């Protein structure tokens, strides 16, 4: 007996002749099959379902990476087509930016030294340190239903779910899933992205930031909640919303966006406002992942001269730092 006949007997791989079944029964048969399939699929252990997804992700990953590299090559040839005058001007601009960055680095180093000295004097606990892991964006996936990026680095580069992702304009989002050499980033305008934040550069006013949906043909937006009633935004002077060290995944002071005005919240106790995020969030080509340093690398050694006179002395805490 051939394989085909055997399969025909089990009547699964082949359509049954309409003559053998009544029209009414044949109408309900597909729906019954659907119900059985859904029941079987959702009864399959979660581990098996996740394994199937991970398998397909791994299978598709080389294609994604190849596509991303092809885009890089396309960009390269596009740049090569530029005239020499354009390249000279771009090089001059890049040099100016590099000079400005050098100056800022020197200022940052001075401030860092001051900060370190003061922290040692006060015996403050060490804040978590980060180093940057740069990654190219493979695909931006901003639909009605979700807002995410796929980047070209993964577990092999030390990336883990929950790590913060930034770019030159501020916060991009947080890593949601990690494969071997790919990672998915939940964008800051996703309603599932929520962190502790501060209003203004002086970090006095805590708030909660959460992404929110934006309308069509509009830039990405978010929302701040839990702003105290005494905070006000003067007309025409937008206030910057920055990250708080309470969020854990981001260092303090990274820009999230700006708010133009605050309004009363639903509970009447606090204020809320719409945060305009950087429009470049939807056009990113490269991002940096904040990978936490090893704990041993960030432990501050107290300066001998700053040791408290009494062992039980309770040192003041920096706002937002964990004891």
């Amino acid at each position: 007996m051939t394989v085909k006949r055997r399969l025909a007997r089990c009547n699964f791989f082949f359509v049954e002749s309409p003559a053998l079944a009544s029209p009414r029964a044949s109408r309900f048969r597909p729906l019954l099959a659907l119900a059985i399939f859904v029941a079987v699929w959702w009864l399959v252990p979660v581990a098996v379902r996740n394994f199937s997804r991970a398998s397909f992700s791994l299978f598709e990953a080389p294609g994604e990476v190849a596509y991303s590299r092809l885009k890089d090559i396309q960009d390269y040839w596009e740049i090569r087509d530029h005239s020499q005058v354009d390249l000279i001007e771009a090089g001059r601009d890049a040099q100016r930016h590099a000079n400005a960055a050098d100056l800022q680095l020197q200022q940052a180093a001075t401030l860092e030294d001051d900060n370190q000295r003061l922290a040692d004097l006060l015996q403050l606990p060490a804040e978590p340190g980060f180093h940057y892991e740069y990654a190219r964006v493979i695909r931006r996936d901003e639909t009605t239903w979700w807002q995410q990026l796929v980047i070209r680095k993964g577990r092999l580069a030390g990336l883990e779910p929950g790590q913060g992702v930034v770019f030159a304009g501020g916060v991009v989002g947080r890593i949601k899933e990690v494969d071997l050499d790919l990672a998915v980033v939940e964008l800051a305008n996703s309603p599932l992205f929520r962190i502790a934040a501060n209003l203004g550069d002086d970090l006095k006013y805590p708030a909660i930031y959460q992404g929110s949906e934006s309308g069509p043909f509009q830039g990405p937006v978010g929302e701040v909640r839990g702003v105290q009633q005494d905070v006000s935004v003067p007309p025409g002077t937008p206030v910057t919303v920055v990250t708080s060290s309470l969020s854990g995944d981001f260092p303090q002071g990274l820009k999230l966006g700006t708010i133009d005005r605050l309004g009363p919240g639903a509970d009447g106790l606090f204020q809320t406002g719409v945060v305009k995020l950087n429009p470049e969030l939807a056009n990113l080509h490269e991002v940096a992942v904040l990978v936490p340093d090893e704990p041993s690398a960030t432990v501050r050694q107290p300066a001998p001269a700053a040791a408290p006179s009494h062992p039980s002395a309770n040192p003041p805490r920096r706002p937002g730092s964990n004891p």
Partner: protein
Amino acid sequence: MKINRYWLVLAAANILLLMLTAMVNDGLAGWGVSIFLAGPCIIWPVLRLGPGYLLLCLALSGLAGDAPLPTPPGFLMTVFIAGACLILAYRPEMGRLRRSQQIGLAWLCNGLFFAVFTGWAILHNGSLSAAFFERAAVDFGLSQLIVLPVSLWFFDFQESVLVLAGLTATPQRTEEAF
């Protein structure tokens, strides 16, 4: 043993369509709109495959399309299979459909799938803001507009690929597709 290539070719074409849609959405990200083109994926498999190979074809293409999505594992596959079962339940005698009817069916399925994904997003994200519904309406309209020419191209593409693979692409009864 002769391996049936019919369902594999249709599944590969489906995966290609889903990948192309993802690439287009990558380009549209800066504009604040996106498109969704999953409806055409189930039409030819439903018309030309028996239940077993139909299940295999839609499971493969559904799971492949599902992998990069934040939906629960198997969500797109389940949506595909549900759509196929609904078509089979209400039109069991659809051996031969004209191209315009196939496109109309793809249009309906695409709208249905869009509604299912929107329902999932509302349940999962708690999205009920006006901006969400504005965006959903625009994306829905754009997707339903684009799915018409895309379906026309996609069905011709499937036909060409089947011919290139040495398989007959003329409409036939599902039993003969094996």
